[in-house]
């Protein structure tokens, strides 16, 4: 059987044109997808059943037992942390938020170690963006800044930018100018018409300089800024100002390096300045499949995209204080529920280590590094493979993930709902 127009849940591109060949309840072939899509669908090894860590090692337990114990752990906690949510659908995320408000937890999603700083910047200056189709159909200048789509979003360039045929850009490769800005000469840099190699942590200064040049203040700028020559900066500014439609895509090179959100704020303000000359947009290359969806769901339910603290009953938000890494680093939380993510592998050691000191429950289809740090791991469906649900693409377009096969696991939304009902004294959500 061939499933058409399947959505890949791996990265924020959410490519929806995959063809999957399924035989006997298994996916045997993936067409149109990148290497990441192929491994997502083909090498899907799951934890068979819920497990619990005991003095003598790991033991299998039933779902009922696992859910009961999870509820007890959360019920008794003074500062529970609910973290993750990026690799699942909106339906599960929404129940997660309800659990958090019910028990006075902190709920945070993986944007905290991804594009959280982009959100902080947007909260200062806004976000001039668009859907990816606008870029595909119109953009003649593309800038990849501090990102490496060839590795992290392999089809971004063929679907939306460099190689994509657009309505106003019929001959994409000839008509689009691609600029790559990075500290590293990546493979993406290799295909650029113009590569700007910046010294480590020099992005902010370079962005400031570009803003000044676009404003006609080039005279102030020194001959070299963070390793980039003034001539190149002036050339880049000119390319941007004379574009018909320019698009900046940025990645973790801006969010994770020194200055964090200030880098992104500066890039947004450059975009703003360029809009006084032509049309320019900017967009983060959002990572994990539905991380943007977790921001959307959190926002309409709580008002904040991530790092929401319900300890006082109301929703409070202050990244740096209510973010998962900070709460773990300070050893604040006394219980943790990790859903659809792997902080064990992705958080600095000191933060991850705290998970092993407190009762931690993982709800995730796969064994991951956090499994080792947990007390209980409950396997569930993987959204987009054996569960349907809503995901938001990196540009905010909502797409329905499909259930392609059935592997007999319960949906994480269903597990979470049972946990909620127990916490709520048996009353249904």
């Amino acid at each position, binding site marked *: 059987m061939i499933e058409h127009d399947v959505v890949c849940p791996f990265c924020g591109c959410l490519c929806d044109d995959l063809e999957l060949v399924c035989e006997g309840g298994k996916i045997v072939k993936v067409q149109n997808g990148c290497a990441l899509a192929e491994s997502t669908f083909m090498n899907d090894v799951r934890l068979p059943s819920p497990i619990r860590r005991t003095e003598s090692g790991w033991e299998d337990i039933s779902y009922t037992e696992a859910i009961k114990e999870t509820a007890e752990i959360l019920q008794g*906690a*003074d*500062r*529970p942390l609910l973290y993750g949510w990026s690799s699942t659908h909106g339906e599960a995320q929404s129940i997660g938020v309800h659990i958090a408000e019910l*028990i*006075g*937890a902190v709920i945070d999603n993986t944007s905290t170690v991804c594009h959280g700083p982009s959100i*902080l910047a947007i*909260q*200062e200056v806004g976000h001039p963006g668009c859907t990816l189709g606008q870029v595909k159909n119109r953009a003649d200048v593309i800038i990849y800044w501090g990102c490496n789509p060839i590795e992290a979003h392999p089809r971004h360039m063929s679907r939306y930018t460099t190689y994509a045929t657009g309505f106003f850009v019929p001959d994409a490769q000839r008509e689009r100018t691609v600029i790559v800005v990075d500290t590293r000469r990546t493979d993406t840099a290799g295909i650029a018409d113009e590569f700007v190699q910046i010294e480590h942590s020099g992005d*902010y*200064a370079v*962005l*400031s*300089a570009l*803003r*000044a040049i676009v*404003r006609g*203040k080039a005279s*102030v*700028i*020194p001959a070299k*800024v963070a390793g980039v020559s003034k001539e190149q900066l002036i050339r880049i500014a000119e390319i941007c100002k004379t574009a018909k439609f320019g698009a900046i895509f940025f990645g973790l090179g801006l969010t994770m390096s*020194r*200055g964090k959100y*200030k880098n992104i*704020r*500066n890039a947004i*303000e450059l975009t703003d300045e360029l809009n006084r000359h032509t049309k320019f947009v900017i967009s983060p290359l959002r990572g994990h499949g539905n991380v943007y969806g977790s921001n959307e769901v959190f926002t309409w339910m709580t008002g904040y995209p991530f790092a929401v603290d*319900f*300890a*006082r009953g109301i929703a409070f*938000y*202050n*990244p*740096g*204080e209510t973010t998962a890494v900070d709460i773990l680093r*300070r*050893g*604040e939380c*006394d219980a943790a529920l990790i859903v659809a993510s792997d902080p064990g592998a992705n958080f600095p050691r000191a933060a991850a280590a705290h998970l092993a000191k407190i009762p931690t429950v993982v709800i995730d289809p796969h064994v991951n590094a956090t499994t080792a740090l947990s007390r209980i791991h409950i396997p569930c469906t993987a959204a987009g493979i054996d569960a349907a649900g809503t995901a938001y693409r990196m540009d905010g377009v909502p797409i329905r993930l499909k259930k392609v096969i059935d592997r007999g696991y319960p949906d994480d939304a269903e597990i979470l709902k049972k946990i909620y009902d127990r916490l709520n004294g048996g009353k249904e959500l």
Partner: protein
Amino acid sequence: MRVILESKVRAKPNLPIEAEAIIPRNFLKGTDLIVYEGNKERTLSEMFWIFVEGTAVSPENIEVILKGDTSRIKRVGEYMDTGSIVIEGDIGMHCGNFMSGGTIEIRGNADSWLGREMRGGTILCRGNASHYCATGYRGEKKGMQGGKVEVSGNTGDFCAEYLAGGTVHIHGSAGDFPGVEMRGGELIIEGDATRPCGNMKSGSCVILGTVHDMLPTFEKIEQRVLPEWKVTADVYKGDVANRGKGTLCVRS
């Protein structure tokens, strides 16, 4: 009147306590106040040994003294308008939020967001202050708007972000981006600083130590003597990236 609050030993000492109730005015009516430990409501007496000396008829005569481990106690002095608070050790985040009058003295170190969105009064921190000292809240256009924050030691990053009024005086060094987005007020850093005043709109900043990674978008106007510091400084205008009209003086 003097109110002495000595923190009790807690089963989970890492849990944050939120104690915006600890302002001098509230002790006029007694010590029956509510604080929060994690997601639980507690009485003040569950968290502190409370000693009251003398009486007061008006809040400006009330002094609150915090002793013991107070490093996890947040929001002490929030919305304080008069009287004084002395913290003998370290203090948690958001000390002196929205403060409009009175004085807070911290003998140890202060955690992040010291004096956030402050309007008036004085905060003196004898140790170091962490990140976002004397700043604002996410998304808000104005940070600290009045009063004075003085730190004897160093501060972390983003000190005086969005400063709009009042004085911030750091005797030691500041981290990355002090005075970023500044739009008013005065920032003095006696020690070193990295990338000061990024994107500043207005206000003035004086740095007497070494500046690391000076931003390329500040225009040097002149060199002059700063009489109050008896030093010669390079005077910059900026941030040019932002049509800014701020002043940044860096010791020559």
